[in-house]
């Protein structure tokens, strides 16, 4: 019985760990399209038809509707309509390669809306049965500089090509020739940032469960049609590509990149894991932060619960309880008075028990100060599963390690430390990694306002501003 209890406890812990790292609900999907927001809900479509819907960006369930079957759709919002591209495959692995790329429109993605209804799909590209291109895996991209619409397509079987579409009709622009822009990728798509066009594609083995080596790579160009070169200067037509994300500890086979810009400086990417060991090795939807490092997109890490120093980017000071600093009674040892042969003594860190009696009861202000690894500076972040989530993450409570003292937003847009967790939105925090690798920390009670250093030593809430280090924090694991 004891053993069973132990196993149950271990299993519970595993589930808790899983819940912090992967989308909840039934996020089963293969080849997810770029996530679209429509009337407050999130949508993604997958291979075989249909797709997933989420009300909060964390809990995902089936229910999205995409007719036509086929493979690897993509979506883009143009004006007040959604353009969906998908592929009718010629056979895939070991089969023929006569593929067709089709597009269709919908005014809404909500299948319960009276406005829901797809236009008739039209072909925009195709490949012959043994051509050096496999016309599937569409990726839609609108050039923000010109307003011209493109669709990339192709697989591991030859070239990746690009067809220009009419953004009003979704049809191929007549008279254009589809250039070859890469080779032997899958699930290509393009994004634009700071004067660069980026072509992302998936390399490696698809569709082999936990043994899939699928990984997402990128090249970039100053021109929309390429050449797309990687960090080593290799053209993607020659197989180049810099890694964006590959396998994780328990999930493998990252493929089918889609970019979602949440806010200035907060970007996320959707993709699938070919297999998640924690979920019956199913193919699942994944959402991770996008970091931009030296002009290249890099997959960020899923935030993990734990105990951290919360360090301000503004000054590098640490978030802390505003309590009396308690000195450690360890003798100062000036080097010039030290016996070199004296045995080394290892001193412990200050413990919570040593200081908690000096802390006042009730609410205590929050402050930012020199990091000394003292109990009033160590914050434990714990997932609150029942609080729901947001795109790619769950809400956390932030507490002084070993206590119930909980960081809380106040109604007058400030922060304090409450004596106990009460489950209110003011004590639930959204943790999102920004594109520069730092974090923004936002209370559920006041979306748009984030934990901020309004002075080196003073935390408060201010509107999110990616261009201000006041709004950014680092989590340093302890």
């Amino acid at each position, binding site marked *: 019985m004891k053993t069973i209890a132990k196993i149950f406890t271990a299993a519970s812990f595993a589930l808790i760990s899983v819940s912090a790292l992967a989308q909840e609900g039934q996020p089963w999907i293969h080849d997810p399209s770029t996530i679209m927001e429509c009337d407050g809900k999130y949508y993604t479509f997958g291979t075989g038809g249909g797709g997933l819907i989420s009300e909060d960006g964390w809990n995902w369930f089936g229910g999205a509707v995409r007719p036509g079957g086929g493979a690897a759709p993509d979506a883009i919002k143009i004006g007040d309509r959604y353009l969906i591209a998908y592929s009718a495959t010629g056979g895939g692995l070991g089969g023929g390669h006569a593929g067709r790329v089709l597009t269709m429109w919908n005014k809404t993605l909500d299948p319960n809306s009276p406005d829901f209804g797809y236009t008739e799909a039209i072909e925009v590209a195709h490949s012959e049965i043994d051509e050096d291109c496999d016309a599937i895996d569409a990726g839609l991209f609108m050039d923000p500089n010109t307003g011209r619409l493109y669709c990339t397509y192709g697989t591991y079987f030859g070239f990746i090509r690009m067809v220009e579409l009419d953004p009003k009709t979704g049809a191929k622009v007549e008279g254009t020739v589809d250039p070859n822009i890469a080779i032997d990728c899958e699930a290509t798509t393009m994004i634009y940032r700071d004067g660069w066009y980026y072509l992302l594609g998936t390399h490696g083995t698809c569709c082999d469960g936990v043994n899939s080596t699928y990984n997402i790579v990128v090249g970039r160009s100053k021109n929309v049609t390429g050449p797309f070169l990687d960090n080593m200067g290799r053209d993607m037509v020659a197989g180049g590509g810099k890694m964006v994300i590959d396998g994780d500890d328990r999930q493998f086979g990252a493929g089918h990149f889609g970019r979602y810009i949440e806010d200035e400086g907060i970007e996320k990417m959707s993709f699938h894991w070919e297999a998640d060991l924690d979920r019956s090795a199913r193919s699942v939807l994944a959402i991770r932060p996008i970091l931009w490092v030296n002009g290249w997109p890099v997959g960020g890490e899923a935030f993990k619960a734990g105990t951290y120093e919360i360090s301000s980017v503004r000054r590098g000071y640490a978030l802390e309880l505003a309590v009396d*600093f308690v000195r450690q009674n360890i003798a100062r040892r000036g080097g010039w008075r030290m016996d070199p042969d004296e045995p080394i003594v290892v001193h412990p860190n200050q413990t919570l028990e040593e200081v908690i009696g000096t802390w006042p009861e009730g609410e205590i202000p929050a402050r930012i100060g020199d990091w000394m690894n003292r109990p009033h500076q160590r914050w434990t972040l714990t997932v609150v599963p029942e609080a729901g989530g947001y795109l790619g993450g769950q809400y956390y409570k932030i507490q002084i390690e070993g206590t119930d003292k909980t960081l809380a937003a106040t109604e007058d*847009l400030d922060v304090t430390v409450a004596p106990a967790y009460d489950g209110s939105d003011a004590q639930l925090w959204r943790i999102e990694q920004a594109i520069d690798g730092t974090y923004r920390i936002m209370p559920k009670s006041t979306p748009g306002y984030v934990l901020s250093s309004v*002075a*080196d030593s003073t935390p408060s809430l201010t509107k999110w501003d990616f261009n201000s280090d006041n709004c950014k924090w680092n989590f340093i694991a302890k």
Partner: protein
Amino acid sequence: MKHLFRTLILAAALVAAASFTADAKKKKADLVETYPALAPYFSTPVEEAVQPDELGFIRRWLLLEPISKPNRGNTVFVDSYIRKNLDTGWNKGEFTLPKDGDKETMMVEYQKPVDMTAGRPMWGVEPETEMKKVKLTWHALDSKLFNVKLYRYAVGTETGRYGLICRVVTVIDCPEDIENVRLAVGSNSASMWWIDGEEALIMSGDRRMVMDDAASKRITLKKGRHILTGAVINGPGMSDFCVRFIDENGNPVHNYNILNK
């Protein structure tokens, strides 16, 4: 004859003394002229009112002569220590705005002479202190720098060097309501600040003077005059502070006048 001459001399001296006292009552001696060491850091206020400087720092202050408070170091300045030693007589109803030249009498802790035979204070020997009754004077000064150099003020006026509490006051006059601003302070070392007798900020610990080191909660400065008071404590080393108001974006607030009465 001798007696008459002595009487005349005494009468003349009394007249001269009376005349001098009357003059002194009319006009306090110019502090910067009296203590030239202040000149690089302070000037005597001349205009009726001034505005914050380009970065929003308040340079016009009334400063009480330093209050002796011996400390071997600044690490003792935890929150409870600061409240105990600085939060005295500044709250609403306890404080009246002083004038240049006003005096305050108080009991002050002084450090007895330290044994320096080793060339420095003996290790592990806490200096002894004693209480003395003193009369301290308020002085109106403008800082020539964005930061008010309390160490230079104490040394320049020959009223102290280390182990001091400096109490400072200024008056700001707002032509209109100024909403959602914060009092932003840097101080060496710890300090406390009040606006119209309400606590606005406490800065504990061994601090260096850092622009915008700490800030108050959002406040609205209503149209009219407000008294801003502060107390800065320091052990050994340099002591100074800088104060300004900043808006929601951290930018300086300028649209008010600064007075010293």
